[in-house]
């Protein structure tokens, strides 16, 4: 499906700040069947925007705003083509990838409760069935609740509460897979819906829109390669998903990261608009 995405982020500061440095992960990925035909990023105040590619292949845009200001606006526009399903790449793992997609992290630590949860849904000697079983298990046992957790909630806590948002669903899926020796990585991006959905849960998204920031998971199955699974909706990735970044967990792919000098508090306002274009 052909999608045009306009993602606007407004940083509001309670008082003027200066020497601000901002990093953003907004550029949709190229690969696995997804094509990004066009991407532009502009800022207010105007300034040079630089970018680099991090070790997971994500494009990180960054810029500095040194003079005094109390507002920064970032406007990203992209033109993407999504495949009907996730087309796995046959690239072999580097030793670092092999380690990263199995090792525990801060958000996804080793934990008894997670291991027993995972074993309940495991299908012996069948990683594919295990992965799908885990996905369905999470979908059925966890309640989607934007109020229960926050951006810092770690997987064991979400499991204890049995509630969370897509970030928590994804972290738990990672936890389950990794504890059973199945390599898995975190995916962040957008989920498009033809009709307006409830206000997205990502920080700052207040108005209903037809696209929400979303998180799901890639799982590596020996025979099939990478498979992309969404435990929040209990389905494989479809053409409605736009992939923006991957990593070990949320900490590797924050949509924005920044630092500034000043005593102000920061508030984020985010608008995501998506238009489905005819092919």
């Amino acid at each position, binding site marked *: 499906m052909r999608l045009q995405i306009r993602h606007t982020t407004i940083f509001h500061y309670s*008082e*003027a700040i*200066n*020497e601000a440095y901002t990093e953003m992960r907004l550029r949709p990925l190229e690969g696995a069947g997804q094509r990004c035909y066009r991407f532009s990023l502009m800022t207010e105040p105007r300034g040079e925007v630089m970018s680099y590619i991090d070790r997971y292949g994500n494009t990180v845009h960054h810029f500095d705003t*040194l*003079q*005094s200001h109390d507002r920064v606006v970032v406007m990203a526009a992209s033109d993407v083509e999504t495949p009907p399903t996730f087309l796995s790449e046959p690239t072999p793992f580097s030793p670092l990838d092999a380690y990263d997609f199995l090792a525990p992290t801060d958000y996804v630590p080793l934990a008894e409760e997670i291991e027993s949860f995972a074993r309940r849904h495991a299908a012996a000697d069948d990683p594919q069935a295990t992965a799908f079983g885990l996905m369905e298990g999470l979908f059925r046992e966890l309640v989607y609740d934007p109020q229960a957790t926050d951006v810092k909630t770690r997987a064991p806590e979400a499991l204890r509460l049995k509630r969370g948002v897509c970030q928590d669903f994804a972290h738990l899926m990672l936890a389950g897979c990794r504890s059973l020796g199945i390599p898995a990585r975190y995916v962040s991006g957008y989920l498009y819906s033809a009709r307006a959905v409830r206000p997205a849960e990502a920080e700052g998204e207040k108005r209903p829109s037809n696209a929400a920031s979303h998180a799901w998971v890639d799982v590596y199955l020996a025979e099939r390669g990478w498979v992309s699974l969404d435990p929040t909706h209990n389905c494989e990735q479809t053409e409605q998903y736009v992939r923006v970044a991957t990593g070990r967990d949320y900490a590797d792919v924050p949509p924005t990261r920044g630092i500034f000098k000043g005593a102000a508090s920061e508030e984020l306002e985010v608008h995501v608009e998506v238009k489905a274009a005819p092919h």
Partner: protein
Amino acid sequence: MLSRVADALYWMSRYVERAEDITRILTVNFHSLLDAPVEVGESAWQPIIAITGDEERYRQSYQEYNARHVSEFLLWNPANPNAVTTCITRARENARSVREQISSEMWENLNRLYFLVRNLDREVTGRGPYEFFDQIRYGSWAFQGITAETMTHGDAYEFIQLGKLMERADKTLRTLDVKYSAVNTMREGPEVSLQLISLLRSCSGFEAFRKTGAAQLQSSRVAEFLLLDQTFPRAVGFCLHRALRSINALAGDSIRPSQLSQHSNPQRMIGRICADLEYLNIEEVLGARMHPFLDTLLMRINQVGDEITRTFFNTQVILPGRAQQPAQQQQQQQQ
């Protein structure tokens, strides 16, 4: 020179000068007010606070104006960022951060002053403050002398001079403003002379003024002396001319190669003020015209202080402009 280092040297010097000036104003007025009739008490102490520009802050801590409250406020009240003990402490903090730039003698001197104010017994001092006043003033003069004799007269030295001169110009102006207004409302009589003497002594200028050959103690002559004289070290004219010299030494050819004009902002601004003062006829600003004139002058000098900060200490980054206060507050170091 690193901006941070220049900033620390400038403010180390400004804070020492500020401590000295406030102490001197207190000393002089203590003496004169002890002679004053009792009823005058309140209205006699209030002008001292007015000189510092901290009236609002004072009123947050105290209801009345009297010897004890005013001294407490000006000497060591933690709510007053311009208190003498706070000034010495901040001067020493700045010195410590740039210890490499100053001589060990300078550091030792400041350190000694710091321990003096830190270990002060306020009760004892409150009862007999003159020794304390002396220690502060002599400590400050020693600091200036040691600086002049033990530091190479390069950029670091110029920043120290600049800080001292800017602070001194500010204080002389404020003192003149408050005392001249007071004198202006008085009727002719010995009271006026006493006030003028107090004004001159507050600027250490009584004897120097006498030597100018002015026959009579007239407010116009005193104002002219403190404002325009270019040889007396505490006169505003002297301070600003010397400050211009320091800035010229520091600015070199230009601040930024991209600058089209030849002079940086602080140079232009101070140059203009010096020229205005040089060609000023004191008759134009006597009487009721003095206060608005001095007020504007003070504002312009504070603007120069801002420009110095902007130009030398804060390259590229422009800090948010401070809101204009109805009373010009004494400048503080950016944290």
